[in-house]
C-alpha cells in the first residue's frame, strides 16, 4: 500500500465532470492532483482521486493538443490550481476555469507556444525566445482595480524577498489600515526544471535529483520516487531496509516540525524562542548525520533498499539521544505553550473550517488540525508503519495554535516510533549488492507518503528505457497554499507572517519546473580558485 501500479479508468474528455462526480459519489472525495502526459498527438490527463479511508482511483482522458477540456472546479473546488499547472506545462485550456488567463508556475514572459513538458519542446528554442530583445520579465503587483476594495486601500507587496520568508514567494496584500481585504498569491519564483530534468537522467540519478526538490523533506522525495519505481520493477526492499527508511523518515519529520515550531517564534517576533528551539533541534541533526552521513540531504534510499546500514552501536546511540531530546523538547514546548502571550498571538489566528480544508484538498497537519485524521501512514501504511504503534494527532479548531499543538504532538509520536524502531530492528542486510542501473519495463505507477508537510505524491511512467518517460510530483505545499491565501482575508498585517506560514510552506518544493536551464548545453563552471578570487574582490 502507499504505492501501486496504475489501473486507469477511461473517460471521454467531455464526460470528465460527470465521471469525476460519479467517483466522488463512490467516496473518492480527495483530489490528489492532475497529471498531464504527452501522448504524441494528444495530451493525456490523469485525475488521481483518493478515498479518505484508503484507495486511489485514476481517471484518464485524452485531449487533442492545443484543445480544451472541461474544468473540474464544479466538482472539486481545489482543482483549479492543478488545472493551471497543466495549462502552464502542456498548453491545454480548461473551459470554465476563470484563471486560465494567467500563469501559475512559469514567468509571464514565457513564450505561449512552447509548453515546456511537451516532448518536442526544444530548450534551446525557448531560450532564444526568452532572451530575445524586448522580452520583459518584470512583474508588478496588480495595482489596477484597487478601488473596487475601498478608497483607502493600498497594495502591500509581500515578497518575493521578505524577511519573513525562507524562500522567495509573492503575496500581494490589499490592506486598509492594518486589515487585509484580499491576498493574491503568485508562485513560481524558484523553478528548477526538476520534472523535465528527471526525464533525461537514469532512475538512480533521479533519486538524488528529486531529493533536491526540498532541503527539509528531501528524504521523502527520494523515498516516494523509489517506492513507485519498486512497484514498476516488482521489487520489495528487505524488511530491515524498510525499518531504516522509516527511521530516517521519522527523524526528518521531527526536524522539520521542530524547525517550524521555532520559526513560529521568529514570525511573531520572539527570536529567543527560535534560538532555543533550534538549540534543541541540533540533537536531531546530529542523529540524521549519524544515521545517513549527512545533515541535510540524507541520500539514504536507493532502489531495492538503503545505502547504509545502521548497526547495533549506532542504533543504541540513536535510542539514547532521542530520549534526551524528548525530555528537553517536552520541557521547552510545555513552557512556551503555557505562555499567555504565545496563546494570545496564535489562538484564533488564521482560522479555517473543516469544510474549507476538505474542499481545497488540503493535506497533512493542516487537515488534521480541524479534526480530520487523514494521514497516509495510517490510511495506506508503507515501509514499516504497519508494524508500528502510533496514533494520529488531530486538533479541533483549525488555527495557528491548534497547528502548533498538532505538530508538537506529532513530534512526540515520532519520538516513540523511533524508540520502537530502535528496539525492534529486524536482522538482515538492507543494502542491495550493487546500485540499480538497469532498464525498467513499460508501465506506470504512483506512490504517496506522508511527508512532514502532508501527503506527497509521485507519479512515474516508464517507456522501457534507462530513464523515466514522465515523473510528476505533487508536493503538499501546492495543495495547501490556497488555504493560506483564503485564511489571510480579514486578518491584520501583524498576523500575516504567522498565517501564511501556518501551512509550513516549502515554496521551493512547490515550484519545480523551469526549462531555460535544462539541457541548454552551456554552463559556466566555477572552480574553487574562482570562488576565492570572487571572495577577495568582495
Amino acid at each position, binding site marked *: 500500500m502507499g504505492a501501486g501500479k496504475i489501473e486507469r479508468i477511461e473517460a471521454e474528455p467531455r464526460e470528465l465532470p460527470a465521471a469525476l462526480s460519479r467517483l466522488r459519489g463512490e467516496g473518492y472525495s480527495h483530489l490528489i492532483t492532475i497529471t498531464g502526459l504527452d501522448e504524441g498527438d494528444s495530451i493525456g490527463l490523469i485525475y488521481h482521486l483518493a478515498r479518505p479511508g484508503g484507495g486511489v482511483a485514476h481517471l484518464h482522458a485524452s485531449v487533442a493538443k492545443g484543445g480544451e477540456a472541461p474544468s473540474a472546479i464544479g466538482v472539486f473546488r481545489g482543482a483549479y490550481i492543478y488545472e493551471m499547472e497543466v495549462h502552464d506545462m502542456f498548453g491545454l485550456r480548461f473551459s470554465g476555469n476563470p484563471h486560465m488567463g494567467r500563469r501559475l508556475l512559469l514567468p509571464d514572459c514565457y513564450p505561449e507556444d512552447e509548453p515546456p513538458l511537451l516532448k518536442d519542446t526544444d530548450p534551446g528554442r525557448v531560450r532564444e525566445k526568452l532572451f530575445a530583445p524586448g522580452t520583459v520579465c518584470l512583474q508588478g503587483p496588480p495595482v489596477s482595480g484597487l478601488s473596487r476594495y475601498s478608497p483607502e486601500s493600498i497594495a502591500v507587496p509581500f515578497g518575493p524577498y521578505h524577511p519573513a520568508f525562507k524562500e522567495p514567494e509573492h503575496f500581494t496584500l490589499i490592506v486598509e489600515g492594518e486589515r487585509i481585504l484580499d491576498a493574491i498569491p503568485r508562485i513560481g519564483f524558484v523553478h528548477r526544471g526538476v520534472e523535465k530534468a528527471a526525464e533525461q537522467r537514469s532512475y538512480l540519478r533521479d533519486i*538524488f535529483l528529486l531529493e533536491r526538490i526540498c532541503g527539509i523533506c528531501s528524504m521523502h522525495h527520494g523515498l516516494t520516487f523509489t517506492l513507485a519505481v519498486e512497484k514498476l520493477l516488482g521489487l520489495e526492499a528487505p524488511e530491515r531496509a524498510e525499518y531504516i527508511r522509516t527511521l530516517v523518515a521519522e527523524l526528518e519529520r521531527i526536524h522539520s516540525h521542530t524547525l517550524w515550531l521555532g520559526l513560529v517564534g521568529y514570525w511573531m517576533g520572539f527570536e529567543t524562542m527560535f534560538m532555543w528551539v533550534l538549540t534543541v533541534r541540533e540533537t536531531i541533526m546530529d542523529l540524521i548525520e549519524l544515521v545517513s*552521513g*549527512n545533515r541535510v540531504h540524507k541520500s539514504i534510499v536507493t532502489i531495492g533498499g538503503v545505502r547504509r546500514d545502521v548497526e547495533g552501536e549506532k542504533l543504541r546511540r540513536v535510542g539514547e539521544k532521542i530520549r534526551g531530546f524528548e525530555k528537553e523538547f517536552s520541557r521547552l514546548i510545555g*513552557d512556551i505553550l503555557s505562555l499567555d502571550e504565545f496563546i494570545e498571538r496564535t489562538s484564533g489566528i488564521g482560522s479555517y473550517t473543516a469544510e474549507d480544508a476538505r474542499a481545497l484538498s488540503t493535506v497533512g497537519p493542516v487537515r488534521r488540525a480541524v479534526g480530520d485524521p487523514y494521514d497516509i501512514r495510517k490510511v495506506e501504511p508503507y515501509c514499516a508503519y504497519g508494524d508500528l504503534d502510533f496514533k494520529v494527532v488531530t486538533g479541533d479548531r483549525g488555527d495557528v495554535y491548534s497547528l502548533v499543538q498538532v505538530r508538537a504532538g506529532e513530534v512526540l509520536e515520532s519520538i516513540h516510533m523511533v524508540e520502537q524502531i530502535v528496539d525492534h530492528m529486524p536482522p538482515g542486510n538492507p543494502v542491495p549488492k550493487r*546500485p540499480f542501473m538497469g532498464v525498467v519495463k513499460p508501465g506506470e505507477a504512483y506512490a504517496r507518503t506522508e511527508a512532514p508537510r502532508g501527503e506527497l505524491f509521485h507519479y512515474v511512467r516508464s517507456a522501457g528505457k534507462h530513464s523515466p518517460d514522465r515523473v510528476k510530483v505533487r508536493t503538499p505545499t501546492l495543495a495547501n497554499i490556497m488555504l493560506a491565501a483564503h485564511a489571510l482575508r480579514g486578518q491584520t498585517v501583524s498576523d500575516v507572517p504567522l498565517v501564511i506560514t501556518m501551512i509550513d510552506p516549502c515554496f521551493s518544493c512547490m515550484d519545480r519546473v523551469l526549462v531555460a536551464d535544462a539541457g541548454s548545453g552551456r554552463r559556466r563552471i566555477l572552480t574553487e580558485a574562482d570562488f576565492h578570487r570572487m571572495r577577495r574582490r568582495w
Partner: protein
Amino acid sequence: MRGALALLVDAFKAILEGPVTRPYPPGPAVEEEARGMPVVDWEKCVGCSLCARSCPAGAIEMVPAGKMRVGKREVPVRKPRIDYMHCIYCGLCAEVCPRGAITMAKKCLLIAGENI
C-alpha cells in the same frame, strides 16, 4: 503567569550554561559519521567511466590520462577528475567503482578559509 516564570528560569539557565555555538574556526570540520568527500586514486582506476555516467550532479569528467596496455596494444585511456564545486558529496561514485579506486575521505572542502 506560570509560563512567564518558566521563561525567566530558562533565560537564566541559558546565561549560566553558556553558549552552545562555537567560535570560528570550529574544531574538527568533519564528524566521524559524515560521508566525507570522494578522492580518486588514478593508480587503481581502470578508466571504465562508470562513476562519470552515474554521478547525479555530472561532476565527474573523464580526462585523457596517457596510455594503458591492454594485451599487447597500447590504448589511450581517460580517467575521472572530480569537480568539487559541482559535487554533491553523495558517495555514489565510490559505491559503483568496480576497483575501489574512489574512496570517501573524512575531510571536507572549506570555501570560507584557507588555513583551517
